């Protein structure tokens, strides 16, 4: 089935790329959504099996694949609204939709791959398709964002490759050349610790470009800012999850070796620095879209702190990235409507949004409550569990500092959002503001409600999948 899925998605992408017929293009995009959903359903019914040697439908892969397939549906619907509103020409539309399809395909395959080199290849493909999306507007700023993204991602992909080379050196001591995660885990006792350390450092650094952690987070911010908002929603959620998968699967291997403590230190330091950096930027950022992107850096920092703390933190980390995917993508979908009203991203030129689009303003308000993890947001549950795991690990000082930083983030986030919602922008001419249909906010409401549901009252099968995905880690 994975072969059928990859070939089907590739065929759809090729036809999308050459076709200039509007109806054909949109129906193909719809067909791709059907294919994607069918693949997700197939994967959940074949839970645990391996296909084409390199792809396993394991719990982490399946749960993220389902998340991805759900997020992809409104992403393409909002892309349709976006393209029609901007009256893009046929070529721009073709390139945009082709890249969306390729991006979704590469991320899905990357989730499921059980071999580190295969994950790496699909990460490379996401760089290619994401760069086409970032360059969508074909202007100077978009070019700058694309160039930075491509360059930093090229370097981090090279880093991952160096990490894989070190890993192969480490594995040679075990007398094996199979780099699948399962084989690595089985031979964990024979891996050479020196090379394993180097491999982890390089692979971790490389994947931070996708995950959005210190040190490689910068390129992702520009990318989410310059890409059209529906594409930015994918870059800010499911693509970050791909970075998480890359790190997490390798972390499972290293956590079962004596290097666990060292790896916790590395991951924890990078995570704490990410929260610190995002706090600094959140306090001074004036561009709403970039503010959302920095909030993503903060959330990934919290997730990786949970991974570093261990215990219940593993479970909470996986829960957190899934809930974050729903919350953050709905905020990004909403941003597009905000832009259509004000034609600006700067906080100085946006204000009193309740007057122009009450439904959309409600989404922003609820999204703010969800993204800052205030109850009843689902993220509150996962964040609370992560704090509990840090407390259990005995890192009280770290916990206090992180909580202080999060308070600052909530202050900065709230200040900007309430300005957008209530305080009128100076000199804004509202004589010909576009009326936006409330139906366009439906998917955002559904996502936010779904995140609350998953957080507060998770179905038993969901909890079981989460537990399975962290079952290989030591308690």
């Amino acid at each position: 089935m994975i072969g059928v899925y990859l070939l089907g998605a590739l065929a759809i992408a090729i036809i999308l790329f050459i076709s200039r017929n509007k109806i054909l293009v949109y129906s193909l995009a719809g067909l791709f959504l059907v294919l994607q959903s069918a693949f997700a359903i197939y994967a959940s019914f074949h839970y645990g099996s391996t296909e084409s040697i390199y792809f396993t439908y394991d719990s982490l892969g399946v749960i993220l694949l389902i998340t991805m397939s759900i997020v992809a549906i409104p992403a393409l619907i909002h892309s349709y609204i976006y393209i029609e509103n901007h009256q893009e020409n046929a070529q721009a539309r073709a390139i945009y939709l082709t890249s969306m399809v390729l991006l979704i395909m590469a991320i899905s395959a990357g989730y499921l791959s059980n071999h580190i080199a295969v994950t790496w290849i699909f990460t490379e493909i996401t760089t290619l398709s994401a760069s086409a999306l970032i360059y969508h507007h074909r202007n100077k700023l978009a070019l700058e964002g694309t160039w930075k993204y491509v360059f930093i991602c090229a370097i981090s992909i090279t880093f991952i490759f160096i990490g894989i080379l070190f890993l192969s050196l480490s594995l040679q001591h075990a007398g094996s050349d199979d780099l699948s995660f399962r084989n690595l885990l089985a031979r964990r006792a024979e891996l050479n610790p020196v090379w394993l350390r180097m491999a982890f450092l390089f692979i971790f650094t490389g994947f931070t470009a996708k995950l959005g952690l210190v040190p490689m987070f910068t390129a992702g911010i520009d990318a989410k800012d310059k890409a059209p908002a529906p594409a930015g929603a994918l870059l800010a959620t499911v693509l970050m999850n791909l970075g998480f998968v890359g790190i997490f699967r390798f972390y499972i291997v290293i956590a079962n070796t004596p290097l666990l403590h060292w790896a916790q230190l590395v991951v924890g330091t990078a995570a704490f620095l990410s929260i610190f950096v995002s706090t600094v930027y959140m306090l001074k950022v004036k561009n709403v879209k970039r503010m959302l992107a920095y909030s993503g850096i903060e959330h990934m920092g919290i997730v990786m702190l949970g991974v570093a703390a261990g215990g219940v933190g593993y479970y909470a980390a996986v829960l957190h990235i899934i809930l974050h995917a729903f919350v953050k993508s709905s905020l990004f979908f909403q941003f597009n409507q905000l832009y259509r009203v004000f034609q600006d991203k700067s906080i100085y030129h946006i204000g009193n949004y309740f007057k122009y689009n009450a439904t959309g303003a409600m989404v922003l308000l609820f999204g703010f409550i969800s993204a800052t993890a205030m109850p009843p947001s689902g993220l509150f549950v996962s964040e609370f569990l992560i704090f509990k795991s840090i407390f259990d690990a005995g890192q009280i000082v770290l916990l206090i500092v992180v909580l202080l930083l999060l308070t600052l983030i909530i202050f900065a986030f709230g200040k900007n959002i309430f300005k957008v919602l209530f305080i009128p922008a100076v000199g804004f001419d509202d004589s010909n503001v576009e009326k936006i249909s409330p139906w366009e906010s439906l998917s955002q409401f559904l996502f936010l409600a779904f995140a609350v549901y998953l957080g507060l009252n998770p179905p038993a099968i969901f909890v079981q999948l989460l537990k399975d995905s962290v079952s290989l880690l030591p308690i």
Partner: protein
Amino acid sequence: MIHVLLITFIITLFYMAIANRLMTYIKVLALQGVILFFVVFLQLSEINTLNLVLIMLETIVFKSLAVPLFLSHLLKRNNITREAEPFLPNFVSLVITTFIVVITILISNTIKDDNLDKIFFVVALSTLFFGLYLIATRRKIITHVMGYMVIENGVFVLSLAVGNEMPMLVNLGIMLDIFASVLILGIFLNKIGDVFKNVSVDQLSNLKDY
């Protein structure tokens, strides 16, 4: 013989550190490709012939012909001035490059591993760090691209060290090489040169938070 070639490779890094003109950089990149060609020929004696020919073709055709020709074409097309414009004087560059090499030698001495020829490790790691240094200290965007090509060459050397046991990794490295180079050079050729006339990193600072 492999050791002589790899040491020559390190010497090219020193030459690059003090070179003034962009054309010199391009020539050094081509020379590195030729050196890698011979290293591949001598090192990968155990893998099958077809794969060996493929890898050698990549080094000679791609690394030492296509990329340098393409880069010099870019120089002419975009009227880029011939100076490299480093932020630091060449003498400091030379000292820092020496430091990089010495430190990697010290690191490699702490590692005890019979499976790995240490000189591969030293050359690869110092090339990697030198590439990053080159990216950080030159003003023009095209020198960033060249710095990236240097990093790629370093990674290629490292993949050769394990090439006999895992030829798949060498092939993956080649894939990375071609993929990333085409992506980066494609953007450079088609877009950056057209939009930003005198290409320097100072112009790439318009994406701001406010």
